[in-house]
């Protein structure tokens, strides 16, 4: 006999209806939702021996979906180049810890965007062997990169159509769920963020193989030529989506944006990772210089004068964030499918704080409800998982988060996680103190 469980509370935001339901309940069995709606209307379907979790005046929402994570990362300012030098065993331990952090913070589905070697596939093995717990993981394995390209240090450097195709096939053999390609350089010291990395043909070799298996693709794009190439190669998600020209100037391009819309590509703008850098600099930290910053800082004379350099970095971080927010606002206005993908734990942005990214999407023009959609149902759609997760609907996985405060009043309330259910199981998240340990807050100083 299957064990029935019921979660009920005063407010149910199921992400199926446009409005929250009062006195809502979700009934689930064997990890799958069997019914959801107003408690009075569905209560006769509750079995007498069902386990009832009554959360009174708390808020029920679907488990969050974060489209962009780096579970190898630390989020303490260290560079990807440094992570690339660490032993796989150490990174596997860190990934397992990060996976718990994600889950305890209410994120029940993640799309990992690039770890070293097989580390994330191994974490999945450990989960399957009952040795680790993790959210539902959508994995790409090693990102596909050119020699010296962004994240090439993670083990996926290829050249030419044949090698690109071969790596795609190798990754499929290793069990990946989608392909991540770095279509431009990035923070990687040896890469060129303002230049495309792969040729269109190389990109196409990977995306074409993806189509063969109904797999999705996503490209890292820090400049416009990379975006353009990616769209030509039918990439499904543009990550970062910086409107930068090869000379470093930033200017929103409505025409390119039209092309994104026309191609029905999703955009994951990664706004907070820049703000996290800003916060870190404001606190007086000296985070690692990424290649991107490095190249831009060429205009500032790098001397031993730490203050000058830090001031320049601070100015640049502020400017960069303003530009990204402005461009994101324009994309949202034009109707681009913009979703939440935190990019944590990259740079200074630690996992467990996905809310910061959603908050900035709201700042860029989304309503609180649209913000919530961007980190639940819309994110699920972007990952091709909308039949399984993203809303509290019959037949979907019972991935449920209980919040103390209503995110429709303030999207920041997404961090008021009280309880988490994953695949119908109540997750013991441990002490309150340990769950506060990963929270990153805005520094007390004025921005």
């Amino acid at each position, binding site marked *: 006999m299957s064990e029935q469980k019921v979660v009920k509370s005063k407010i149910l935001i199921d992400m199926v209806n446009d409005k929250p339901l009062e006195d809502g309940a979700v009934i689930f069995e064997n990890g799958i939702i069997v019914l959801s709606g107003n408690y009075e209307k569905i209560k006769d379907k509750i079995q007498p021996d069902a386990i009832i979790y009554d959360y009174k005046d708390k808020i029920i929402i679907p488990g969050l979906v974060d489209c962009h994570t780096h579970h190898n990362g630390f989020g303490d300012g260290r560079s990807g180049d440094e992570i690339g030098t660490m032993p796989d*065993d150490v990174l*596997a*331990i860190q990934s397992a810890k990060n996976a718990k*952090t994600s889950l305890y913070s209410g994120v029940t589905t993640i799309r990992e965007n690039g770890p070293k070697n097989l580390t994330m596939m191994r*974490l999945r*093995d450990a989960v399957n062997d009952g*040795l680790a717990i993790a959210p539902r993981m959508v994995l790409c394995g090693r990102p596909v990169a050119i020699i010296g390209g962004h994240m090439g240090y993670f083990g996926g450097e290829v050249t030419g159509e044949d090698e690109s195709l071969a790596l795609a096939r190798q990754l499929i053999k290793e069990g990946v769920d989608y392909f991540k390609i770095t279509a431009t350089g990035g923070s990687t010291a040896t890469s060129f963020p303002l230049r495309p990395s792969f040729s269109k043909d190389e990109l196409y070799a990977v995306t074409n193989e993806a189509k063969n298996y109904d797999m999705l693709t996503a490209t890292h794009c820090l400049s416009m030529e990379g975006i353009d190439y990616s769209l030509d190669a039918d990439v499904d998600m543009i990550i970062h989506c910086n409107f930068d020209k090869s000379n470093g100037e930033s200017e929103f391009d409505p025409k390119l944006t039209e092309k994104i819309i026309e191609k029905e590509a999703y955009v994951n703008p990664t706004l907070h990772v820049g703000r996290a850098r800003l916060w870190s600099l404001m606190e007086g930290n000296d985070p690692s210089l990424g290649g991107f910053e490095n190249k831009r800082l060429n205009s500032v004379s790098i001397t031993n004068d730490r203050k000058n350099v830090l001031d320049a970095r601070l100015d640049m971080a502020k400017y960069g964030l303003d530009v990204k927010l402005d461009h994101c606002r324009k994309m949202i206005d034009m109707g681009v499918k913009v979703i939440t993908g935190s990019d944590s734990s990259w740079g200074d942005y630690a996992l467990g704080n996905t809310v910061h990214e959603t908050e900035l999407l709201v700042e860029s023009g989304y309503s609180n409800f649209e913000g919530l959609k961007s980190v639940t149902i819309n994110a699920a759609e972007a990952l091709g998982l909308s039949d399984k997760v993203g809303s509290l609907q019959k037949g979907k996985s019972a991935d449920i988060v209980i919040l103390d405060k209503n995110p429709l009043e303030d999207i920041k309330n997404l961090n008021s996680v009280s309880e988490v259910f994953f695949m119908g199981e109540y997750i013991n998240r441990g002490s309150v103190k340990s769950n506060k*340990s990963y929270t990153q807050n805005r520094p007390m100083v004025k921005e």
Partner: protein
Amino acid sequence: MNNHENNILILQAGELIDGTSKEVKKNISIVINGNSIVDVKPTGELNLPKELEHQIIDYSDKTILPGLVDSHVHLTGIGDGRSGDELSILPDEVLSINMANNAKKHLHSGVTTVRDCGAKNNTAFHLKKAAEMGIAETPRLVLSGRPLAIIGGHLSYFGEEITGINECRAAVRYLIKQGADFIKVTASGGSTKTSFPLRPSFSQDEMNVIVEEAHKFGKHVAAHCHNSESMIRSLTAGVDTIIHGVFKEYDGTNKYREDIVELMLENNIYMNPTLGPGLMRVEIMENKKKAGVFTDIDQEESDMVSIEHEHRMECFNRMHKAGVPMSAGSDSAWGAYEMGNYFLDIEGHVMGGQSPVEAMMSATSIASQSCWIENSVGSIESGKLADLIVLDESPVNQIENLRTVSQVIKDGKFIDRENLL
């Protein structure tokens, strides 16, 4: 200006078992400064300067003892009954994740120091790196890395199969280069399918060179011995700890050997009798009986388990009476012995004839001596590192009360035992 270097913590223990003395003391204050114990005095006699900022914690209805030292763990184990042969085919990354989980579990149960007696490839060293980076919460780690084994020998699947004195010397040097704190050698076969538990593995010459090379670098050697001849070879070579120490002749007969015990006593060699796994096996059989799923094959196995266990208990009792220092060490999470249950092994020491306080000494000061770390941990004394555990119930007359750990303090810091990250 506050002096941030002074972070004085005073624990007022109702009962203190200090790890080194058989005397149970009452109403003792333990003064901790940072990560060290700086004073241990009767509570009434403590006289601190008034201006010194300090925090007092009242444990007058509780028992304090040193953080437990488990002189034999396999953090790589899973404890769900799978064999070492099965473990060794798991990828290093999976084993690393498991090791980090186990280390945390053991620490939360009250074990503040472990000696890891063998893991695959570089996983043990990488766990230490993760601990140093702050991403893994572990007890203090005394590591062997890969155990030294002959081709096909016990634990050879962990990656250090060697032959001849040159390879033995090289393996010791290489492990020490990688950061090994001691050398574990499998001097006989064991549960490994391709090994021979009733035969010694390494030759006397090989054993000699392993010990000589380890000692040259100030590292100790612990030898897995599943038969008497392997013990003789190990003791002749000068190893420092005998693990398991099963008294068995070539033909498999059980025979306690006074001559071996004499050799141990002459050189003050530590015995790690690993009683926990046997107790665990007895318990599993009893549970099967209770559950009514006990078959004829189980009866045969159960008889064998009982005979072996009784022999081990008898040998334990005689060695203890003869004065061999018995170092507790669980051997978890090997086989079916899950991490976090060290108390079972310590209870075994009481069943074998030690008093509860003696058994706790076996699991603290004696274990730390056998690990060559007695200068820093294993007792509650001025100058030692502040590793302590607080028990709700006194274990002095009831060793099972070791299970009532309510606080674990390592390096002077309270461990958040509810931290599941």
